[in-house]
């Protein structure tokens, strides 16, 4: 799997995975690439999951690991309108932890940053 990276104003980086499913078959690679972004100094991330229609617990675990790594110094905003993806966050109560914007409009996510 690959991540498409786009630099936005305010030093924000938009990250778009090129898969429809973030599951156990791609989660380790997904996590490694996200951590590489942080290692490269990107600390204001928008994870655009609007093209993703399924996340399993491994995919979710990769997002949690990224959040843990980023939280002390940066910000992670998740953008998705997928009901299946939102259901996963609700079932695990992680919707209360993450900033999740249910929109396809990137400006809605950008506005979450200072």
């Amino acid at each position, binding site marked *: 799997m690959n991540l498409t990276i786009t630099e936005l104003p305010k030093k924000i980086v938009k990250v778009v995975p090129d898969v429809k*499913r973030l*599951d*156990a*078959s791609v989660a380790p690679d997904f996590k490694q690439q996200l951590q590489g972004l942080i290692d490269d100094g990107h600390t204001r991330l928008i994870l655009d999951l609007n093209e993703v229609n*399924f996340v*399993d*617990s*491994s995919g*979710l*675990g*990769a997002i*949690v*690991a990224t*959040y*843990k790594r980023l*939280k002390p110094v940066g910000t992670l905003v998740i953008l998705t309108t997928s*009901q*299946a993806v939102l*259901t*996963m966050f609700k*079932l*695990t*109560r*992680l919707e*209360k*932890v993450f900033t999740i914007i249910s929109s396809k409009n990137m400006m809605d996510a950008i506005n979450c940053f200072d």
Partner: protein
Amino acid sequence: MEKIISLEISGKLESVKLVTLSIRSIFSCFMGQVDWDWIDETEIALAEAITNIVKHGYRYQKDTTITIELYKSKVAFEFHLIDMASPYTIDEIPSLDFDEAAIDTLPESGMGIYLISECMNDLKYIREKNQNRLILVKHFLMI
């Protein structure tokens, strides 16, 4: 119980989506008894259960198979997941305890069985003829 369909897949992670995508198509024929939220929850439970078999049962062994049988009763659908891995037990459903404000407590793994139990109405395990049979039961809507 009426048997609806039986699927056999290779015991590898890449096969999980073949089952869940098939299940989505199959249940689009049962709208009214189920809805899309029902199907989303079923997809989550099946993906977690099959992934667990591949990871923890077969430990990524090659040349393994998993059979998924779908049954329909008067009140529910049953998914039977059959594999030839070592026996296991499901004594209790782990809780998903974490403090939302304490970042170190957020879970990165170990959510599978919890999610299956949240998405299904019942979960049973039978060991028979050197096979594991995990049975996931999900009621129709309005039961």
